[in-house]
């Protein structure tokens, strides 16, 4: 890979150990993927924050790395951590876990990363310009950024996004190159999509059937930001998909895939478990302001039935803006947590046994890693069955 004189100096350690390590990481990735050179990025989104996920191994590395005086040089935001930074006790988190999680947060803070703790950086001010190069980890945000915001990023891991944030560059390969961003599959939808769950199921189904594609989803209707967010998250859950198209014209003749109601039902079946859910989780990816507003309207003057939980997950940014509606939700018996989510918080500590969500991503990961049962649920069923 070609390096500028300045980059060579970084690699030789002239700017210290932190910069040397960071550029070593970028050069290694560039070598692996045969990138020609490094390009400047405008922002980074860094995953690998939850103590529950990265453990003592990640904590030790991040702490020691931050002590080398590593500093980010572009706008850098953070993925959810493993607890609500204020209401952790309510979630069953103990003192030791809390302290270790805080050491991870402090390490990122020291490096200059904004403690946004959300998988939806685009709702809290990290909105890349159309056409800009970025280095984002968090697979749902990667798909959203490439497909909806038209920014360019590969699917980074936490450490590579952090290295990019420190150098301000990323290897030029993959989805940074326009020729690699063209669709290679035409997906035709032969069913009506109405709810966020429908869009999530569509994404999960596409990822399941063509896991390594860049699909052009033809005839996508009734979409809004929240539905595209749900679709993005699900595409990256069942598949390696980092980008889709849903607008504009296509020139090339593409291989076709038709998705009908039956295919969506197969996905729904795959994400179902026997038994009655006792905990409803909404907010994977984190709820937008509009979603909080919608939920608050739906449960106003109602009360959640006893022995059930309805936990809503969002970013601190949205939480503060929607505070009035958060209060309505809390009065109806719901809990609105920020900074974390059902996937990266050890949800076993909630004491519930069976989670249901309108997000395929949430159900997929809770079922596989948490020890809780997990199933899909429509929001309309939540309001009719769990409230009085």
């Amino acid at each position, binding site marked *: 890979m070609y390096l500028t004189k300045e980059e060579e100096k970084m690699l030789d350690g002239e700017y210290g150990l932190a910069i040397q390590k960071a550029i*070593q*990481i970028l050069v290694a990735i560039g070598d*692996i993927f045969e990138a020609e050179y490094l390009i400047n990025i405008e922002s980074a989104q860094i995953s690998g924050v939850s103590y529950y996920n*990265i453990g003592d191994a990640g904590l030790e590395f991040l702490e020691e790395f931050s002590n080398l005086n590593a500093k980010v040089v572009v706008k850098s935001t953070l993925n959810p951590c493993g607890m609500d930074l204020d209401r952790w006790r309510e979630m069953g988190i103990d003192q030791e876990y809390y302290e270790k999680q805080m050491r991870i947060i402090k390490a990122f803070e020291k490096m200059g990363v904004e403690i946004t703790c959300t998988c939806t950086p685009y709702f809290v001010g990290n909105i890349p310009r159309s056409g800009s190069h970025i280095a984002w980890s968090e697979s749902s945000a990667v798909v959203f950024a490439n497909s909806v915001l038209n920014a360019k990023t590969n699917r980074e*891991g936490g450490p590579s996004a952090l*290295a990019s944030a420190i150098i301000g560059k990323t290897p030029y390969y993959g989805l940074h190159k326009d020729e690699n961003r063209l669709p290679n599959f035409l997906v035709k939808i032969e069913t009506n999509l109405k709810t966020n769950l429908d869009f999530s199921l569509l994404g999960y189904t596409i990822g399941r059937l063509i896991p390594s594609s860049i699909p052009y989803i033809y005839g996508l209707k009734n979409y809004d930001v929240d539905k595209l967010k749900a679709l993005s998250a699900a595409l990256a859950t069942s598949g390696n998909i980092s980008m889709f198209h849903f607008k504009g014209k296509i020139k090339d003749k593409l291989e076709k895939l038709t998705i009908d109601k039956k295919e969506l039902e197969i996905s729904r079946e795959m994400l179902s478990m026997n038994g009655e859910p006792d905990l409803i989780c909404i907010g994977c990816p984190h709820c937008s302001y509009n979603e909080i507003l919608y939920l608050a309207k739906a449960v106003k003057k109602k009360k959640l039935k006893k022995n059930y939980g309805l936990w809503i997950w969002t970013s601190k940014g949205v939480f503060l803006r929607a505070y009035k509606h958060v209060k309505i939700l809390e009065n109806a018996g719901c809990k609105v947590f920020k900074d974390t989510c059902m996937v990266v918080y050890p949800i076993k500590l909630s004491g519930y046994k069976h989670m249901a969500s309108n997000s395929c991503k949430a159900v997929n990961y809770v079922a596989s890693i948490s020890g809780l049962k997990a199933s899909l649920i429509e929001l309309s069923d939540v309001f009719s069955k769990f409230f009085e």
Partner: protein
Amino acid sequence: MEFIYKGRGISKFIGEGEAIVSKKPFSFFGGVDPKTGIIIDKNHDLYGESIVGKVFIFPKGKGSTVGSYIIYQLKKNKKHPSAIINKESEPIIAIGCIIAEIPLVDKLEVDPISNIKNGDYLIVDGINGIVRRIIKNEAMGNDKRSSSWLCSHIENRKGCY
């Protein structure tokens, strides 16, 4: 008998040790105990074996990116492999090796999994992307001086354990 294989140096350090070879893609997260360096993945062909001080050879990495941090933790606990050889590297293993300063070489001119045997003595030069393989036979089997003797034959001895 000695062979020299050329490949690609991904993590630019030097290390040596006995080979331990696996046919399966490997996840350090959930695959190895960072306190002992013993493989704990029950579905792995090296289940129960130690990778400490050895040259760990497997096709490629897989699984969570937390795997990079586990490699770092192995190093801190001094339970790390002395080098890694992959058929084809991917970022999880590459980043782990870089932050832990463990040599990583891939894309050797021969298939390392079918050519290198458990117990072969390897010197892995991640700077130049070269692997030297000393085949254990009766004449060399108990030759304790081989390690330091071989080390002195490498130009750059930094990182030589």
